[in-house]
């Protein structure tokens, strides 16, 4: 996030798009409600009628995958009415005229035809977002998990810059990160093309720095993304795979295909808390320690690095993750002799400018937000205050593209996937918790009352769902949360593995698969 959670309470307007915030980021949802009660405006754009929509000033349900069109439509109205921030655009950005040119085309009427959102609502959204400064834009996987994920994010940034909402308190572009430490994992170079702190492996200075520090010449070419690894396993280029704390057999798209390529591997190593579906196929399984059993740090969605301290020693044969990795590396011929997580942290901060001013002692109870480059630097609650990392903020002229797969005669329904509040990802942790499990014991598919009526489906009845990639059976949940022609199903449940159906088509840049849109058909199961 460019900004901090607490700041949302003082926003003039909060625009939530592609985030089911009360269920997936409940504490941030609390901040949004407080902001609303203090007088902020709230706009919710989501294909489903989510819980947060109950509190919104404007709610729109745009068609799956039509985000670029919707955002361009809002910007069209803003520019036409002169509600944009000329001074901010002039002083802080570049490329506005290119954007302006593309926006010309996105009249409310055209956008209504693509998104299904009425012209009047598009105009109201534009006016509300532009007229209540500072406005914070919040998004989650509903924006990113598309073949146009990068375009969607760029459009969000365009909108924020257009109205001078970047580099200001309580504004910003705020992707809500889904895991306690996923921001930290990315910061630590858990991406194929960068070292810690987003220093590119292809950058000579950075590469030399890390090669010297680690006493080993490091590759200058980016590694593979997960999407490319699946391809690599398929064509035999990848022979061994290590999976740390992930259960791709349930969480990856087109999981039937993934099953198939996993079988081709010579060797599969899985490290997890519990025996997962993926771990069941592993040649070797390492028992990792739980959050209560290991020391270390977490960097959360607002870039805040905080310490986590173990409450108990690891049970059974489990070991802290860092210890397993060190032992594995040493066994493979590269000695890692760290005595504790703090030693690793200190090495990391010495090589990572944005974490450079952090020490365990300084993190204290509340942690520090990066960038924190010096020992006296207080950390950074919001980014881009005076300038962007690249100098000027760049507008990207983005055109709308259809999702990879659209409904047709054979597969007439849109299917979107996601989460529900009592479970987490593939349920490896939440389904073994009696209280969370009892809240929702099986998978389900949300069907609109109209569609359920047409097909004579009853609530709770098992239905067959088919896509071009596979089929599953799943109980029906009849609800007006989804409109006609739209289906939703969470991916937490191994008994109803919805990712057998999802489309592995991916964004060309970020390589993120299109979990949020695919075409399916429903079949009533004969009694």
């Amino acid at each position, binding site marked *: 996030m460019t900004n901090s959670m607490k700041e949302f309470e003082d926003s003039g307007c909060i625009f939530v798009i592609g985030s089911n915030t*009360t*269920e997936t980021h*409940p*504490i941030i*949802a*609390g901040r949004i*409600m*407080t902001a*609303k*009660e*203090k*007088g902020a405006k709230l706009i919710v754009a989501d294909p489903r009628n989510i*819980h947060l929509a*109950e*509190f919104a000033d404007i709610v729109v349900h745009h068609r799956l995958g039509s985000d670029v069109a919707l955002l361009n439509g809002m910007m069209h109205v803003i520019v036409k009415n002169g509600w944009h921030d000329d001074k901010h655009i002039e002083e802080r950005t570049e490329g506005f005229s290119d954007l302006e040119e593309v926006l010309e085309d996105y009249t409310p009427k055209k956008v209504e035809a693509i998104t299904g959102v009425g012209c009047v609502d598009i105009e109201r959204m534009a006016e509300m977002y532009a007229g209540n400064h500072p406005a914070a834009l919040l998004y989650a996987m509903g924006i990113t998990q598309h073949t146009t994920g990068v375009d969607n994010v760029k459009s969000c940034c365009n909108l924020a810059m257009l109205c001078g909402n970047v580099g200001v308190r309580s504004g910003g572009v705020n992707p809500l990160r889904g895991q306690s430490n996923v921001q930290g994992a990315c910061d630590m170079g858990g991406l194929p093309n960068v070292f810690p702190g987003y220093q590119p492996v292809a950058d000579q200075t950075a590469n030399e720095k890390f090669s010297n520090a680690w006493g080993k010449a490091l590759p200058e070419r980016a590694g593979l993304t997960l999407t490319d690894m699946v391809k690599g396993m398929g064509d035999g280029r990848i022979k061994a795979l290590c999976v740390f704390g992930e259960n791709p057999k349930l969480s990856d798209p087109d999981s039937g295909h993934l099953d198939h390529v996993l079988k081709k591997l010579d060797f599969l190593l899985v490290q997890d808390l519990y025996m997962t579906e993926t771990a069941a196929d592993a040649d070797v399984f390492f028992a990792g320690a739980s959050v209560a059993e290991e020391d270390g740090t977490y960097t959360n969605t607002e870039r805040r690095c905080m*310490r986590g*301290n173990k409450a108990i020693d690891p049970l059974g044969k489990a070991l802290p993750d860092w210890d397993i990795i060190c032992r594995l590396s040493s066994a493979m011929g590269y000695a890692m002799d760290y005595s504790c997580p703090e030693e690793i942290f200190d090495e990391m901060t010495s090589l990572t400018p944005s974490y450079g001013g952090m020490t365990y002692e300084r993190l*204290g*109870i509340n942690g520090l937000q990066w960038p924190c480059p010096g020992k006296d630097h207080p950390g950074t609650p919001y980014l881009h205050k005076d300038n962007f990392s690249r100098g000027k903020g760049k507008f990207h002229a983005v055109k709308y593209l259809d999702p990879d797969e659209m409904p047709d005669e054979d597969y007439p329904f849109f299917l979107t996937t996601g989460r*529900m*509040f*009592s479970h987490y990802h593939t349920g490896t942790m939440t389904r073994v918790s009696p*209280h969370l499990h*009892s*809240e*929702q014991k099986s998978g*389900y598919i949300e069907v609109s009352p109209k569609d359920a009526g047409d097909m004579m489906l009853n609530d709770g009845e098992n239905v067959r769902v088919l896509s071009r990639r596979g089929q599953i059976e799943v109980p029906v949940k009849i609800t007006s949360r989804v409109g006609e022609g739209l289906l939703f199903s969470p991916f937490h449940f191994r008994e109803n593995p919805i990712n057998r159906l999802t489309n592995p088509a991916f964004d060309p840049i970020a390589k993120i698969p299109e979990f949020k849109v695919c075409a399916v058909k429903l079949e009533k199961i004969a009694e």
Partner: protein
Amino acid sequence: MNMMHEIVKEWLEQEKIDLFIGYKVVDGHPLPCFFTRENIDDVDNLVESKARYPLEKIAAKVYSTHPEMKIGILARDCNQRALNVLYVWNQLDPEKIETVGINCCPSPAREHADCSYLEREPSGPLKTLIGIENNLKPEQAEVYSQEERFKRWSYEFEKCIKCYGCRNICPVCFCKECSLEHSDLIKKGELPVEIPIFHLVRAVHMAGRCIDCGLCEDACPANIPLRLLYREVNQITARLFDYRAGTDSGQSPFSILGENVTLEPMSL
């Protein structure tokens, strides 16, 4: 070593108690902690703490598996009232409990916002307009018409994210099977929670039990005025039965079916 440390050490050494439940600062956070004879020097780390937890609920858990154990507890007024309720409902044996009383809001620490004896920040204008302000007294909340009260409370309940934090922190929530998790009573797996049944089921269970500690409202991430709701329920209990939970040592009017009966429903 202060007076509190001396007392606790003496009790442990003289076997007046086998276990003391208080607070200790761990990594900067005051947390509930067990102090024992075996590790008696640790008593020097015992603190009053600015944070509050239902220590008596922890004691009740220990009692359920070790009924012979004598337990000492650090007790503010609210802990004391909660203990009384747990005695009345046979969740703890008063013969087995010793308390070390401490000031309610450690003076002059009135700044510590966790304690519900303090007033909260004033509500935002929208909450005042369509919701229920957390600082209202029961009689102030009663000025609205029936219809408006229902609307306002529904708005508050709608914010619930179903974290069960109110129940989990509650010192007097001890039913083996919780009605809130009973799928015949309340629909599961959806947000918003079923309105108003989810919150009213809990409110009914608070009648004659709630000791107004305010931990539920402190725990609530949605800022729902739970304390006010349960105060209303308890005013009715006081009016109809002349019974005040936590203060009256007699049986609760809701335990008419026998002393081992709790308020949980029979399965339907």
